[in-house]
């Protein structure tokens, strides 16, 4: 058992730069045919976006990975929430990260604040998670 995290600890950040192939695979895995994700003339001319839109739940998945990779085998994810507040487009570099907000040493439960941030520094997908660390001797 490793030491429990402390409020203020940062989760390791990871950058994502999805391309057309990844976005195609993702939407194919879902069976999502929304044209804004693969039809560039439709996305720009009809919907008025500056490019192909990165799927919202893909960014939610990156938040899940951020927490899950950090937890490893030391704990479990109990709850994850996120909100897609701003759009992101193919070609952008996005960063997933987070911070420990609270820790209950008696239960091993910690709350986390999470984010997907674009290159301009704007948080486009904020999130939160509740995790539980295994306690020594438990």
């Amino acid at each position, binding site marked *: 058992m490793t030491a429990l995290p402390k409020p203020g600890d940062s989760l390791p950040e990871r950058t994502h730069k999805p391309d057309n192939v990844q976005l195609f695979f993702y939407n*194919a*895995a879902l*069976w999502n045919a929304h044209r804004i994700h693969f039809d560039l003339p439709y996305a720009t001319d009809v919907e008025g976006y500056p490019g192909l839109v990165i799927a919202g739940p893909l960014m939610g*998945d990156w938040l899940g990975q951020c927490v899950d*990779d950090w937890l490893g085998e030391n704990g479990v994810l109990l709850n*994850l*929430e996120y909100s*897609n507040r701003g759009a992101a487009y193919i070609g952008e570099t996005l960063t997933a990260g987070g911070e420990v907000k609270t820790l209950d040493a008696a239960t091993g439960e910690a709350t986390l604040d999470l984010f997907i941030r674009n290159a301009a520094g704007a948080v486009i997908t904020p999130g939160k998670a509740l995790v539980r660390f295994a306690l020594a001797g438990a």
Partner: protein
Amino acid sequence: MGLLTPELLANIGKAAAPRTEVVTRRDIRKYAIATNQRQRKYLDGDEAPPLYHVALFWDVVELNELNPDGVSIDKLLPKFPLERAMAGGLNISYHSKIRPGDVLVGHRTLTDIYEKEGRSGPLIFYEVVLKVQREDGSPVITEKTTRLLR
């Protein structure tokens, strides 16, 4: 205010027919690769990553069930007086892990419809709860989706 008629609000509580899906290693692997996973247990399909159920319970619709923009028509939802979909959010509670061979049943319910005044006009919010269970009814995932229309 006042976009939400009693007829519209009467849809709260409406449930879709339960859907049963079989989890396969192949589908977990595809999902893990598409999301740029790094953990071997997910890339090999030994276990499903935390957001995998989003793909598993996305509606499999036929081509003639798609709108011209490629979006599937969600039959659980009434026709809302506002149609431009804005931000959406998910709140997911985890009860047990998903592995290949699992048989999972998804129950979707429209649990709320409400209206708020936004900066540039009225906004309609709706909430859909997806309960993913095993065939014996034991819980796997509870997910609440909140969507916002303007």
